[in-house]
């Protein structure tokens, strides 16, 4: 009996796969040639971002690509503004075309959404299963943001509906918000805690009656104190511990490149995060992403790129 089942599976599986391939190909055929080209370029740009491709091919629960619309009105205040403006405009157009056809390609394992808040907009790719696991595992952190009676499924739905992306201004706890995002981005609990400590310290510094620009340049640089925020600090501050904390944070935190930074010919844009190189998760993340780079380049060079990427995005959930 088992042999018969196996026989049928061997015969049927390739047929099902073939049918699925034909379905994607035939659905692509419904798209006018010009829109197909726009979509091909759109997905090539998105998935040449480490953040997106590691979510699609790797272990990242979520990846995002962000743009700041202020660039449109104040380009002179940014480095290489044309580069960002071009990509922003092209991706915006790509999304408009994708909106017309996304119903043809249900992304079962992923949620691919566009978010907008204040002057920011961007795209988020969520690996549903992995993101849900993060929320379930760190439920308290997420509940601090949305209410303690909200369960993991509801929070997950909120994430998928884009209620999590860019809402710094309305979040009840900025630190929990950073923690939740860091966990969803897959940077590991230790790195997320380091980042949160840095933010907490930053908020404390902003609350002090001192001119922060008079601090040593390495501190200013490390803390990236460009914006002026004045959060209300309710607890008392021990200045001696502040100095110790500052020294520790400066020693520990750095901007970590997850791609091979010495290879300028890698056609994948760097994914970076603030973290501690001494945490095991940091090196694990770097080496895991490094291993994927070859696969991402191969994917990038695939002849039927649109078909391949849509097959990956619409693939059935493997149980």
């Amino acid at each position: 009996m088992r042999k018969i089942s196996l026989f049928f599976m061997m015969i049927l599986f390739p047929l099902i796969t073939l049918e699925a391939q034909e379905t994607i190909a035939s659905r692509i055929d419904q798209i006018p040639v010009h829109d197909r080209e726009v979509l091909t370029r759109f997905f090539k740009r998105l998935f040449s971002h480490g953040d997106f491709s590691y979510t699609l091919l790797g272990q990242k629960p979520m990846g995002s690509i962000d743009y700041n619309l202020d660039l449109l009105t104040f380009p002179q205040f940014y480095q290489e503004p044309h580069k960002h403006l071009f990509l922003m405009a092209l991706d915006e157009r790509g999304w408009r075309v994708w909106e017309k056809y996304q119903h043809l390609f249900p992304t079962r394992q992923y949620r691919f959404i566009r978010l907008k808040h204040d002057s920011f907009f961007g795209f988020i790719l969520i690996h549903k299963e992995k993101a849900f696991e993060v929320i379930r595992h760190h439920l308290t952190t997420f509940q601090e943001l949305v209410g303690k009676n909200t369960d993991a499924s509801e929070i997950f739905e909120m994430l998928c509906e884009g209620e999590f992306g860019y809402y710094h201004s309305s979040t009840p706890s900025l630190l929990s918000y950073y923690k939740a995002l860091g966990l969803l981005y897959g940077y590991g609990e230790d790195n997320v805690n380091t980042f949160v400590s840095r933010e907490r310290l930053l908020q404390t510094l902003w609350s002090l009656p001192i001119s922060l620009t008079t601090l040593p340049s390495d501190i200013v640089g490390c803390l990236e104190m460009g914006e002026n925020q004045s959060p209300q600090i309710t607890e008392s501050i021990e200045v001696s511990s502040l100095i110790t904390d500052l020294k520790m944070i400066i020693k520990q935190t750095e901007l970590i490149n997850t791609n091979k930074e010495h290879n300028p010919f890698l056609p994948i844009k760097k994914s970076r995060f603030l973290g501690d190189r001494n945490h095991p998760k940091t090196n694990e993340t770097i080496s895991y992403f490094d291993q994927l780079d070859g696969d991402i380049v191969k994917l990038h060079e695939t002849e039927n790129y649109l078909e391949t990427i849509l097959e990956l995005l619409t693939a059935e959930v493997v149980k």
Partner: protein
Amino acid sequence: MNKVLFLMGLFALSFCFSGETKEHQPNVSEDLAQVLWNVMETYEGEYSLQELFTTLWKLNTGKIESKPIEECYHSLLTSMEIKAAKKSEINLQAANSYLQNIKQLEGFHELIDGKLYYRVIEVGSEQEIGEINDAPLISFTEKTMDGKVLSKNPLGIRLPLSETIIGLREGIKGMRTGEKRELHIHPNLAYEEFPKPEPNSIIIIEVTLISP
């Protein structure tokens, strides 16, 4: 030409606009114009100078109300999109004709028709190498068509070729130890639409094979 028109327009407008602040802070007007000009340069070719002046005048005289900046984003994004598409097309045409010219020049070798060419700058050792492994030791300088350096490593680095642009991966084939080549790479085999430094840019790489 646009700049001249802009300055003339500003001069003409100075008669229409209120002069209250000018006496006390003469530099603000001038510097504001510079800031505005910077923004305008970003949208060059996509706006009408006359309409811009008229709108400024209407705003200044209260004939129209200012609107939230968010409402202006759509047209600015569309303008950028048109500009990006134009830039891509112009650069692609320039890349195609550049490589067609290269093709005719003496000393250039074709690796992929219309896409990849090289010339030997320094001859390497006489000994032929069979296959170059996936991570040869190379030194390189990556440049644009007008000579702007994008990246370089004069000391040498082992780069996995499977993780580089196709132009370098293919262009390095057949090199001998010590050989220095200048690769001329079509954007399709380089960064395509990604603006490095602009969408659809030709990339020139001077590469030396230190060790296969």
